[in-house]
C-alpha cells in the first residue's frame, strides 16, 4: 500500500464513541417500546370500534330486511283476501244464475 493510502488509514482511524451513547441507545429503546405499546392499545381500540360499528351495521341491515319481509307478507295476505272475496262474489253470481235457470 502506498504511503498516501496509509495516511488515509491513519486519518480515518476509528474514533472513541461518546460515553453517553450506550445510555442514549437504551433510553431510545425504552421510549420506542412504550410508544409501540401505546400504539398497540390505540390499534386495539380502533379495531374494537370498527368491530362494534360493523356489528351495528349488520344488525341494522337485518332489522331492515325483517321489516321489508313483514311488509311483503302483509301485502300478500291482503292480495289473497281480495282474491278470496272476489272469488266468493263470482261463486255467488254463478250459483244465482244456475238457480234462476
Amino acid at each position, binding site marked *: 500500500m502506498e504511503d498516501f493510502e496509509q495516511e488515509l*488509514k491513519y*486519518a480515518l482511524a476509528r*474514533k*472513541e464513541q461518546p460515553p453517553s451513547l450506550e445510555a*442514549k*441507545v437504551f433510553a431510545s429503546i425504552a421510549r*420506542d417500546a412504550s410508544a409501540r405499546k401505546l400504539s398497540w392499545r390505540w390499534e386495539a381500540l380502533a379495531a374494537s370500534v370498527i368491530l362494534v360499528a360493523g356489528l351495528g351495521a349488520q344488525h341494522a341491515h337485518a332489522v331492515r330486511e325483517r321489516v321489508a319481509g313483514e311488509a311483503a307478507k302483509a301485502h300478500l295476505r291482503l292480495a289473497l283476501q281480495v282474491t278470496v272475496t272476489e272469488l266468493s262474489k263470482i261463486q255467488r253470481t254463478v250459483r244465482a244464475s244456475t238457480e234462476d235457470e
Partner: protein
Amino acid sequence: MPTAGSATEAQAEAASDVTFAEVLRANQSSVFSLAYHFLRDRGAAEEVAQDVFLRLYRKIDDIENAKHLTFWLRKVTSHRCIDYVRRRGSQCTIALEDTAEPPAIEQHGDPLLSRRLRHLIATLPEKPRMVMVLRYQEDLTPEEISDVLEMPVRTVKSHLQRSLAILREKIERSMGEIR
C-alpha cells in the same frame, strides 16, 4: 400476579437485553466512527448511531451470525448517513475547522496531515465519501463496499480512483502553500 409464562418471557427479554448490550459495546465505536467520518459532526454521528442500534434492537432476531451483524451494521449506518445528509440538505452549517474531534482509539501518523485529509474527504460528494470511509476506516475491499452500498464494483473502483486523485492533488497543493 405474574404467571409462569410471563416469567419465562421476562427472563428471555432480560437475556436478549444482555446479548444486545454486548453487541452494542462491541460495535459502537465502529458505527459511531463511520457516521462521524462521513458527517464530520459529533452530535449528528451520535444521533445516527443511536438510530442504527434502535433498528438493530428491533431486528436482532433476523441477524444470523457475527459476519451478518457486521455487514448489517455497516450497510444500515452507510444508508442512514446518506439519508441524514440528504434530509438535512442545505442546512449544513457546521464549520468543519471548529468542530471538536473525538479522540482516536489509536493515534498514528502526522496529526496535522490527518486533520487536513479528513477535512478534504468531507468535501467529497456523498457516495464517493462513503466509499472512502468504508475503504480506509473499515478496510473493506471494493467488492465488499459494493455489497454494502449496493452499487456495481466498477463504480466503487472508479469512485476510489477519482477520490484518491482529487485528494492527492488537493493535499499536494495545500502542503505546497504551507511550505
